[in-house]
């Protein structure tokens, strides 16, 4: 099964890259390089170190923002899910945040916090946090009542119920929220670099576009997608080692 799903992943990647190569050769647009051109640009930037320098810059707001969003988001989500009052207080904020057009908010953030790391971290958080909070809180609220009752009947304290029943039961949905949040965080990090000040990977994209070096531009975009995919897979691996029995879903009836 494992090798088959891996095979399918490789196959779909090959199809995608093949289509890219063909589209680049036709060409769809003059600004659209072929897959192989982009890859060679990617290896060139890896070779001369440009890419690593750029990532050292880009990863700062990304890692800080995603870490804050994960910890704070899960924490607030648990609270909101466990308490009706907190639900009333916080849920609307995150629902609005999720719906807000971020591009419109960026000038306000820059006005308030300047063009430094703070603003970029905030952009990542605004992108990543709502979905983490909302998923966590709804997962917590939907913990099967019979499991909580079971725990109480076997003398679990409130803390036991939270740690031994609610969190493990909610973990699949919490992790789904984390995955969505992390993807959104990647978008946020690049958006921040494009809209606030061009630094890091955002700088490569902006600069190479301005000098019409499209292979480099697409190589940068490709690298960030690759990183996101790798990170999501890592998250999945963490989840399946932490909560083994959850993998095949819930036992109903």
């Amino acid at each position: 099964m494992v090798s088959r799903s891996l095979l399918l992943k490789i196959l779909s990647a090959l199809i995608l890259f093949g289509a890219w190569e063909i589209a680049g050769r036709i060409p769809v647009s003059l600004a659209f390089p072929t897959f192989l051109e982009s890859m060679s640009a990617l290896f060139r930037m890896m070779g001369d170190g440009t890419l690593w320098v750029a990532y050292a810059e880009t990863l700062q707001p990304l890692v800080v923002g995603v870490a804050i969003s994960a910890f704070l988001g899960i924490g607030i989500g648990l609270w909101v899910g466990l308490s009706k009052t907190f639900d009333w207080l916080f849920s609307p904020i995150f629902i609005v945040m999720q719906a807000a057009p971020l591009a419109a908010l960026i000038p306000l953030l820059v006005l308030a916090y300047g063009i430094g790391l703070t603003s970029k971290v905030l952009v990542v958080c605004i992108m990543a946090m709502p979905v983490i909070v909302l998923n966590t809180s709804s997962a917590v609220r939907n913990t099967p009542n019979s499991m909580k009752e079971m725990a109480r009947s076997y003398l679990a304290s409130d803390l036991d119920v939270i740690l031994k029943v609610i969190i493990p039961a909610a973990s699949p949905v919490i992790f789904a929220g984390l995955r969505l949040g992390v993807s959104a965080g990647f978008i946020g990090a690049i958006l921040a670099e494009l809209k606030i000040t061009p630094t890091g990977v955002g700088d490569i994209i902006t600069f190479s576009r301005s000098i019409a070096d499209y292979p480099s531009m697409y190589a940068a975009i490709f690298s960030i997608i690759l990183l996101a995919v790798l990170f999501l897979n890592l998250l999945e691996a963490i989840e399946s080692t932490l909560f083994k029995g959850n993998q095949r879903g819930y036992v109903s009836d």
Partner: protein
Amino acid sequence: MDMSQTDAPIEPVDAAHESAVSTRNISKNYGEVEALRDLSLEFPRGQLTSLLGPSGCGKTTLLKIIAGLLEPTSGEVEVNGKTVTGPGPDRAFVFQDFALLPWASVIRNVAFGLEMRGVPKAEREDRAAHYIKEVGLGGFENAYPHELSGGMRQRVGLARALSVDSQVLLMDEPFSAVDEQTRRKFQEDLLNLVRNENKTFIFVTHSIEEAVYVSDQIAILLPRPSRVSEIIRPTGFRHKDADNIRRDPEYLDIVDQIWASLRTYVE
């Protein structure tokens, strides 16, 4: 026919078997729905009492009130002379829907009650393994609930309740998810359990035959709002061995009689 039977909900029981659990004037409303009304019942120590009644009449509700999981709207429950205010170590629950933790292996599920009581890991796994064997699940210690059949899951729930060694076992239709053969086997095992362990069993069932087969005392509940309509104490065949009970004339009489009084509510 040497069976005693009264219409009164509270019956004097012989001194050797004073009540382990008594419920006094329990009423329970779920908002508009009146589930139980003024229900009083005594559960003799060391015996098995069945709650028998139509679906939705409040059997689970009563059991959860005794467990301390639900608060009655009025009335009180006493276990060993102490008023119940919440769950306690003197009661263990077998749930109608098993209530297993899907992310935990069989052995962790069975040891859950011991874990909550602070029993060290090595000791609780020993005890859990013992009861897993006892319910016939030896070899499945490290399986997960989704890998088990319904009947096997039910046995996990049973082992969990047995492992905490409580005085009172509250069993909510514990045999509902198993096939007829297994069910009969479980019923015989239950009779042995009642005989060998000095525990008080409160047992919910839909099946008249099952109730008569395993019970020292059967409380027949009326549909909502539920009260006790009749208490039947099948005594004549209790000492017989498992195979002969089902052929005993008294057994058959009581089954007929209960059906006669319940059918009025079904029709």
